[in-house]
C-alpha cells in the first residue's frame, strides 16, 4: 500500500477535506444553478415562437444572454464576476466564493439542457391543458416540469457531472477540492498516486450521481 500510494497516505486529512470541499461546491452550486437554469430554461421554452407565452423580444434577449454567458471561459468568468462574488460572499477566494463563478459557469448550460428537454414534452398535452383553462404557470409546473421530469433528470445528471468537472478549476481562487489536489499536488508535483486517488474519488462521485440519476429516471418514468 505504502509502495503504491506513498504520498496519498500522508495526505489522508487533505483528501477528506478536499472531498468535502468538492461535495460542498458541487451540491450548493448545483442547487443554485439548478434553480436559475430551470427558470431560464423554462422561460426559453415558454417565450419561444409557438410557446405558451410566445414573445419574440424576450426570447431573443434570453437566448442571446444564455449564449453570452456560455461563451465566457471559466477562468475569465472568475475575474469578470469577482465584484459580484465579493458583493455576495464578502470575499473572492475560498470554497464559498467559488460558488458564484461555478453557478454562473454552469447555469446557462443547464438552461440550454432544460430547454432541450422540455421541447420534447408532447405539444398535444400542452394543448389539452390549455383547453382546460390552465394558466401558463400551471402549465409550466403541472405539465412541462411534470411531463418532462425523466428528461429533466437526465439532463441534470449530465449537468452535475459537468459541474464536478468545473469544480476542478475552482482551485484557481483557492476553493480547494479534489481537482485542485489532483492538479496542483498530484500533477504539478508529479505525485501520480495523488492524482490517481483524487481521480478515483471524483469518479466515484460521478458514478454515484449517474446511478442515483438513472434510478430516479426509472422511478419517475411510466413508459
Amino acid at each position: 500500500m505504502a509502495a503504491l500510494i506513498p504520498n496519498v497516505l500522508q495526505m489522508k486529512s487533505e483528501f477528506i477535506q478536499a472531498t468535502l470541499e468538492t461535495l460542498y461546491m458541487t451540491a450548493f452550486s448545483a442547487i443554485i444553478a439548478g434553480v436559475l437554469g430551470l427558470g431560464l430554461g423554462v422561460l426559453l421554452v415558454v417565450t419561444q415562437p409557438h410557446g405558451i407565452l410566445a414573445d419574440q423580444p424576450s426570447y431573443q434577449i434570453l437566448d442571446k444572454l444564455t449564449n453570452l454567458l456560455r461563451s465566457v471561459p471559466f477562468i475569465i468568468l472568475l475575474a469578470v464576476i469577482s465584484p459580484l462574488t465579493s458583493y455576495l460572499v464578502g470575499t473572492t477566494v475560498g470554497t464559498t466564493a467559488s460558488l458564484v463563478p461555478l453557478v454562473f459557469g454552469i447555469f446557462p448550460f443547464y438552461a440550454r439542457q432544460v430547454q432541450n428537454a422540455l421541447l420534447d414534452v408532447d405539444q398535444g398535452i400542452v394543448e389539452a391543458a390549455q383547453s382546460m383553462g390552465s394558466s401558463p404557470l400551471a402549465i409550466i409546473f403541472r405539465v412541462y416540469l411534470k411531463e418532462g421530469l425523466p428528461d429533466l433528470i437526465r439532463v441534470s445528471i449530465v449537468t452535475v457531472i459537468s459541474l464536478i468537472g468545473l469544480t476542478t478549476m475552482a482551485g484557481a481562487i483557492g476553493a480547494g477540492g479534489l481537482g485542485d489536489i489532483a492538479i496542483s499536488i498530484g500533477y504539478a508535483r508529479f505525485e501520480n498516486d495523488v492524482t490517481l486517488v483524487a481521480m478515483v474519488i471524483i469518479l466515484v462521485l460521478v458514478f454515484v450521481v449517474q446511478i442515483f440519476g438513472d434510478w430516479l429516471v426509472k422511478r419517475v418514468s411510466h413508459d
Partner: protein
Amino acid sequence: VGIHELTSYTVQSAQHATITVGSMGSDYDIWQHIAKSQDAKAMGLTIKVKQITDGVQLNKATADGDVDVNAFESWSYYETYNRQNPKEKLAALGTTYLEPMGLYSKKVTSVEAIPDGATIAIADNPSQASRGLLLLQKAGLIKLSANFGALGSLKDIKRNPRHLKFKQIDDTTGPRIIKNVDAVLISNTVALEGHLHVLRDSIYHESFNKSTKANVNILATAAKNKHRASYLKLVKLYHKADIQKYIKQKYYGTKINVNKPLSYFND
C-alpha cells in the same frame, strides 16, 4: 543517410540555427523581443517563440524535443522535474534572472503589522508555494521544519506564532484577490502583469543571495542536447547588453540579471 544528415545538420547549425523556445508570460514577451533583436541575427540564430502556459507540459515538450529550449522555470522547479521524471530528463543551459517573490498587501504596510490570525494567500503550485513559505520564514512570520525542501508544503510549518491562515490559490490570481486577504505572496511575473512593482509595492521580498539561488531562472533543454552549441549561445544572447537594457526598462529592474555558471548551484 543518418551520417550525412547529421553532418549537414552540424554544419548548418554552425552557421545558422533555428531554435524553438517555449515560454510563457513575461518570458514569452522577452523572448519575442530577443527573437527580433539585432544580436540574435548577429549570432546567426533564428528563434521561434511558442507560448505554452502549463509548466509540466512545457517541460515534457522540451524533453520530447517538441520545444528545443524552454525559458520559464526556476532551478528548483527544474530539479524537481528531473527527480520525478528520470526517463525524460532535462539539462540546464544557463542562468537568466532572479525574480524576487514578494509579499503584498493592501491592508498593512509592513510585515510587523500583519495581525494575529491573518489570511495569507499562497500559490497552489508546489514550487511557488515552497518558495513563498521560505520567504515567510525569512520574514520571521513562520518557522519551517529543518528538512524543508524544494517541494515543501504547508504541512512543513513547524511554528506559526501569529496563527496565520493560508489560502491556496492559482498563482496568477494573486493581484486580483489582494483586497480579499490580508497579504498575498506573488511571484514577480504575475506581479508585473498586475502592475505591482516588487521593489516598491511589496511589504517584503526576496533578495538575491545563496539562500534564494534555487529561485534563479534558467534555460533548459532536453538532456541529450546539453552541449549543443547553438543552444548554449542563447544564454550568451540573453545577457547581451542591449537586451538587458530592454529588460531592465520594461520590467523596471525587477528581473535581477543573474549570469552565473551552472556550477554556482552546486556550491
